[in-house]
């Protein structure tokens, strides 16, 4: 298993993939975090779906990670794309047969791939957290937001909790991408399906019937990153989101282990 992780990390560290992914993560992190502070007085709101995040909220101990928690959803979509592409490309390039000849334990391949991509995702999340908190700290005085409580023990606890929540959410999005990659066996199909579902289909469904946000997978995983959402508790999101991920992962793993590698 350790060998699989080492081999996969070798692929993940190639400059175009590594810097491309980190660049995308930094772009969204910078954009969304800046938006919260620069648009603080905007009547259109400065948060997700027109929500307003006021000075009193940003001035709390958890204020430093407001931007970071908001960007969790985008980091999740980036993870979904990377996990889906890294998994499905083994089929399109025909490299899966090389992997299985060198490591016939299919579950070891799958788990090793997951661990390596999780490490990659955690690196991305850590960089995003640092950049988001740094941007928040730089922009807070201009937006008249107090940072007095940010680096107290309660503040550090909020940073840690948010980091864990975002990590759970992003890895779960990644696993969804991996499942799609295994099921569809094509990076383009897996990414298109995943992104279209999360960004368009779920939002349309929720716009038509608001209560669906309690049951749709993307909404649950986004809520986990934010530590819960309006009308959607963290515990509920964790349970329902976890169920989606677990069922998907089990189905995809069984298929991967049993399916003939005929391409």
């Amino acid at each position, binding site marked *: 298993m350790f*060998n*699989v992780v*080492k*081999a996969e990390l*070798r*692929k993940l560290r*190639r400059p*175009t*993939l590594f810097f491309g992914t980190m660049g995308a993560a930094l772009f969204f992190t910078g954009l969304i975090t800046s938006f919260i502070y620069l648009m603080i007085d905007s009547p259109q709101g400065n948060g997700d779906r027109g929500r307003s995040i006021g000075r009193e909220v940003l001035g709390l101990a958890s204020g430093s990670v407001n931007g970071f928690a908001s960007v969790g959803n985008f980091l999740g979509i980036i993870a979904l794309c990377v996990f889906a592409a890294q998994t499905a*490309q083994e089929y399109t*390039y*025909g*490299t899966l*047969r*090389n*992997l*299985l*000849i*060198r*490591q*016939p*334990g299919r579950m070891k391949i799958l788990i090793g791939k997951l661990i390596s991509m999780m490490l990659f995702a955690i690196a991305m999340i850590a960089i995003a957290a640092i950049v988001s908190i740094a941007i928040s700290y730089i922009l807070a005085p201009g937006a008249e937001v107090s940072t007095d409580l940010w680096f107290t023990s309660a503040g550090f606890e909020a940073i840690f909790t948010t980091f864990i929540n975002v990590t759970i959410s992003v890895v779960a999005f990644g696993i969804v991408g991996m499942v799609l990659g295994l099921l569809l066996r094509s990076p383009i199909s897996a990414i298109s399906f995943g992104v279209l579902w999360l960004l368009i289909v779920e939002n349309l469904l929720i716009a038509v019937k608001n209560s669906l946000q309690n049951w749709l997978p993307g909404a649950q995983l986004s809520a986990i990153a934010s530590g819960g959402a309006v009308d959607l508790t963290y515990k509920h999101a964790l349970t329902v989101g976890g169920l989606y991920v677990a069922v998907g992962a089990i189905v995809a793993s069984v298929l991967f282990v049993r399916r*003939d*590698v*005929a391409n």
Partner: protein
Amino acid sequence: MPNTAISVSDLSKKYDDRLAVSHINFEVPLGTVCGFVGPNGSGKTTTMRMLLGLITPTTGQGHILGEPIEHPEKYLSRVGAMIEGPAFYPALSGYENLMVLAKLGGFPLERVQQLLDKVGLGDRGKSKFKTYSLGMKQRLGIAAALLPEPKLLMLDEPTNGLDPEGIQEVRALLRDLANEGTTVFVSSHLLSELEIISDYIVMLRKGEIVFAGPIGELMAQQQPTIIAKSLNHSDLKRIVEIAELAGHHAVIRNDSVHVLAEMDWAPVLNKAAFDAGITLAQLAPQLPNLEETFFEMTGEK
């Protein structure tokens, strides 16, 4: 220690209603070069995939280096393989691609550069795989197959895309490996190549074994041919009649008559043709080569 590198018994693979491989039986002795031949779609790659644990057989058993194919983890560390062409990550260099596989298999990393040198890619190892020519990709595939210092090497069409010099190098490499004790199981459409390097032949047609055994045994089964050419093309029909009158099957191919007969009948044909007023321009006994044998046995062409 078994004395066979590969042994399969009643091995079949069925896809929906199509039987890709049908109850095949064969053995490949250790330390030999075994040519695996058959027309496109005859089941060669499917058989190789079953032997490598990539697909599950519908029926039958197989053993690789004494281990059952149901447990590829027991033998794949001693097997090198390249099937259905070289498959690598296009954005990684040849060197990085081999490093991925070396790390995955837990092989010594210094072997990567050694193998790149061995297959003639030493100076192109840092180039991305997507920039390689077909021949270079093929060489990288062979290098990848050699990573585990295999006891058994399974190669599917390893000379595809290689120039004549490259083909000769691969031939020499395979022979050297066999001399060092590696069993080589190789499929190729270049039957003349296989004839030169193979000790054993396994011949497939429509998923069934046509022949499996030593190549010498196969060639000995084949009837020799006498090829006769006349100065006048119009005499060819008359030569066919002479041969058939003596009970030998004869056909006209291009500008000559091919008579299925033992070598010692050639002087008899020569005399009969002379008596019939035919002047032969050429009279040559010829043993069929592997390609002709293959076409005859598989009914192709």
